[in-house]
């Protein structure tokens, strides 16, 4: 059964069986659209580029994970010990051992600068602060990609946002803004999925309905030729999505072997604090989605705002993170996708060198980290460094917008290109100063 809805959803199998409706969740081979067949026929070796971005809501402590300071001042350095990684001379924290083992497949930026103390995903997704992005109507980078590159497959959206709606609103993904609804992410939450998978009627029946609708919907054709009604481009796409099971299949992690699911770690759809859940199934979904043809998949992962009890919390929550992200990285490589799929993991900001009275660390936007993998990048390296307190970038400070610039470049998009909005006005996709990170090229 399809289990993308998480254990608590009221749409779990069996709950909503409609009595009058011919329930016909499409089995494999139940239906293939001509378009789908074409797409599948073409599917030989995939060369299309894509990105999975994992957003760590709340801001993970950089100095307790990927930038430990064993020789730093005692009152700042925290409880965790460094461990060796698969890259000589590079150490990670003791609670990310699996990531340490695949450090050769990672590039760790330790000197991310320029972020603002802002609890939001906007800096990660738009390369600017929420305020500025809202004021300037800046789109999510996934919308930019959707606008510039379109879909690879008629029934698989270019941009899927797996982030479940979080209580702290700014953690949620920004919208398409001036790029319009056509480039909005397809949100994957309980109801949206239920709509795509629980068929009210069989696809044939749906086509009958559609034919009748088209015969009567004169309004759309005549009076409806006003610019308001005709702008409605999703009318047909909805039918296509409903009559193909490709997207829904991609979201169905039960189609993976138990071994793979075990390797990713399951996690739970239960939200942590006012942030995201640690739902490792979604990392696997993300990989399945990019394989199905998505260009951008975003996942909000975990909740890392550790103002109190930082060390106990991390000790409890890092292992699942370590398992999930390392599984994703290794899986991308094992499937030969390392040149095509970029994985990018980062959050709001770093955390204070000083440990507060509650054994927590507070917000620290002076410096942060980012993990990158795949995308044809040079991995097995650490970029930049911080001072002995892990409080300021020392070598090679990397403005955070450069991470998105790198992502764009990996996707084959010039980060200095223009994207055309709904009224065909050009807009720079990134600030002029942003450029791909040299050391990764």
């Amino acid at each position, binding site marked *: 059964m399809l289990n993308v809805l998480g254990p608590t959803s009221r*749409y779990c199998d069996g709950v*909503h069986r*409609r009595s*009058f*409706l011919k329930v016909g969740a499409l089995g494999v081979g139940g239906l293939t659209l001509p378009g789908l067949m074409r797409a599948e026929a073409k599917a030989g070796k995939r060369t299309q580029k894509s990105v999975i971005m994992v957003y760590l809501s709340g801001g993970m402590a950089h100095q307790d994970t990927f930038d430990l300071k064993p020789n730093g001042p005692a009152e700042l350095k925290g409880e965790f010990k460094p461990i060796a990684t698969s890259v000589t001379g590079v150490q990670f924290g003791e609670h990310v051992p699996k990531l340490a083992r695949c450090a050769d497949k990672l590039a760790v930026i330790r000197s991310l600068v320029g972020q603002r103390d802002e609890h939001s995903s906007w800096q990660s997704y738009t390369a600017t602060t929420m305020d500025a992005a809202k004021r300037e*109507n800046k*789109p999510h980078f996934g919308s930019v990609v959707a606008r510039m590159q379109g879909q690879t497959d008629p029934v698989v*959206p270019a941009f899927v946002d797996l982030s479940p*709606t979080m209580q*702290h*609103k700014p953690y949620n993904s920004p919208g398409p*803004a*001036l*790029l*319009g*609804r*056509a480039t*909005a992410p*397809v*949100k994957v*939450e309980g*109801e*949206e999925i*239920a*709509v795509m998978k*629980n*068929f*009210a*009627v069989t696809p044939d*029946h*749906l086509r*009958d*309905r559609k034919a*009748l*609708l088209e*015969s*009567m*919907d004169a*309004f*759309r054709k*005549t*009076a*409806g*030729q*006003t*610019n*308001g*009604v005709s*702008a*409605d*481009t*999703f009318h047909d*796409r*909805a*039918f296509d*999505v*409903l009559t193909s099971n490709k997207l829904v299949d991609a979201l169905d992690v039960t189609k993976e072997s138990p071994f793979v699911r075990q390797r990713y770690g399951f996690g739970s759809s239960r939200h942590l604090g006012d942030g995201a859940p640690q739902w490792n199934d979604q990392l696997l979904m993300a990989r399945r989605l990019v394989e199905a043809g998505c260009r951008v998949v975003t996942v909000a992962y975990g909740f890392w705002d550790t103002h109190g009890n930082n060390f106990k919390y991390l000790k409890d929550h890092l292992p699942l993170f370590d398992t999930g992200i390392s599984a994703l990285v290794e899986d991308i490589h094992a499937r030969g996708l390392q040149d095509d799929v970029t994985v990018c993991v980062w959050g709001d900001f770093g955390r204070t060198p000083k440990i507060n009275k509650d054994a927590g660390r507070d917000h620290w936007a002076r410096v942060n980290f980012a993990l990158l993998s795949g995308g044809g990048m040079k991995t097995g390296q650490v970029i930049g460094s911080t001072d002995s307190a892990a409080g300021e970038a020392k070598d090679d400070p990397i403005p955070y917008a450069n991470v998105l610039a790198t992502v764009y470049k990996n996707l084959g998009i010039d980060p200095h290109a223009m994207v055309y*909005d*709904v*009224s065909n006005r050009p807009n720079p996709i990134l600030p002029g100063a942003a450029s791909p990170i040299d050391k990764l090229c």
Partner: protein
Amino acid sequence: MTRSLSLAAALLAFAAARADDPLRATIDREVAAKWKAEGVAPANRATDAEFLRRVHLDLVGAPPTHDETVKFLADTDTKKRDKLVEKLIADPRFAKAQAEVWDLVLFGRHPNNYTETHKRPAFKEWLAKQIEANDGFDKLVKNLLLAEQPGSQVFYVQFRNAPDDANVAVSRIFLGTQLQCAKCHDHPYDVWTQKDFYGMSGFYVRLTVQEFGNQNNRTFNIGEKNSGEVLFAGNAKELKPGQKGDPVKPKFLGGAELKEPPTPKDYKEPPAPKDGKPMPKPTFSRKEKLAEWVTAAENPYFAKATVNRVWAQFMGRGIVHPIDDFQKENEPSHPALLKALTDGFVNNKFDLKLLIREIVNSDAYQLSAAGPGREALPKHFERARVRPLSAEEIIASLRTVTATGPNPNEGWDYFLRAFGEPANGLGEFQGSLSEHLFLNNSEHLRAFVRRKKGNLTDQVLTSTEPWEARVERMYLSVLNRSPKPKEVEAFVSYIKREPKPDAAVEDAIWVLLNSSEFRFNH
């Protein structure tokens, strides 16, 4: 007027008529004058069916029922449209529906401080009560800005510690003025300077949001301190780090500085009371001065901005359009009409019901939406506008037309995701993919279509009338019009082809609910 009158007499009669004409006559005269000047031919008068659905949705936020539709279409009273308008304005749903409209104007779908502001039943109730009482829209806005009545306070909560945002919103909504550009630099194409901006922000800078109760039962008090000034440091581009700027006195937009007693030099603000009590009122309230100034009959912006917004609500576009951008470069399309509506509104003590009544009784409002041109919002009001239904209207429509009533599984949050903001990045209509998926296949929609005792599907299936009559019933119920012969034929043959009438009737209703005719008010 007859041709036998002399020209002079005619002019006199004409001029005399203007003074006590109902506003609707002025509307039609001014709109027709523009058609003539522009050489535009107006559309035909809307059919009864068109008018019926349109005015129901516009006034009470839901379409008529099947029986109301049948009754109205059969009614031969020549005054039936006026009577319907009266009936709908007196309907308890009127105030609720208008409150939904204004609530969305005041908050949008994503208000700041979302946790505290996104669910606000008490506010909507307060607003509906004010609209129902119809004690003058000026008083309503005054009460809103005073934020003293229970339920009303949440308006300011979205601007907690953000006096500039409060200023931008109030100026935009009630003064029809876009001030935000003047925050960082003098306005590039309007007259406003940064001093104007910060002068207005000064009215909000002392406001404090006090929160009481818990998550499930939250109330607010909007307190006001005795001290605190907006600091202004010049063009944002030239600011140096750490530069704070100088205090700016509150100044009414385009008017004088506020006269207020000076705060004593050694005044120290007492700490906010911690015992769950509201802050004491200040000795001098800037908020009160602001509320009085904004809503005064002499305020040069308020009445004009309000009638323009209400006009656009019913006619699709403002006389000044965009509606919240009054400025030199954006002249009204019908200046005399705007003036007449403004004067009429002020002279009738800001009577919102009267204003709405006059607009929907005008011939201009009662034109057909079908006609030449492709503009959804015709520039000269030569056709009725085509407007997408709001999320609130769609859910009310689904309940009404299928006679299913509220359904516990409607899933309002999901519904809002699908229908809350059907706009492209420029604010133009664009239904989302999730909207179509919702309509095509959601469990929520199915609940309205599935046979349930007494609902439309059940009525049609129980009926023993010929299928032609039953198709007619479905059309009258869902689209509030009779089907055309071709439509009857298509539906009847579809239904007869299906072996099981249950499924076929559900299909038919599904089709009507998925039609664009249902999705729009036209």
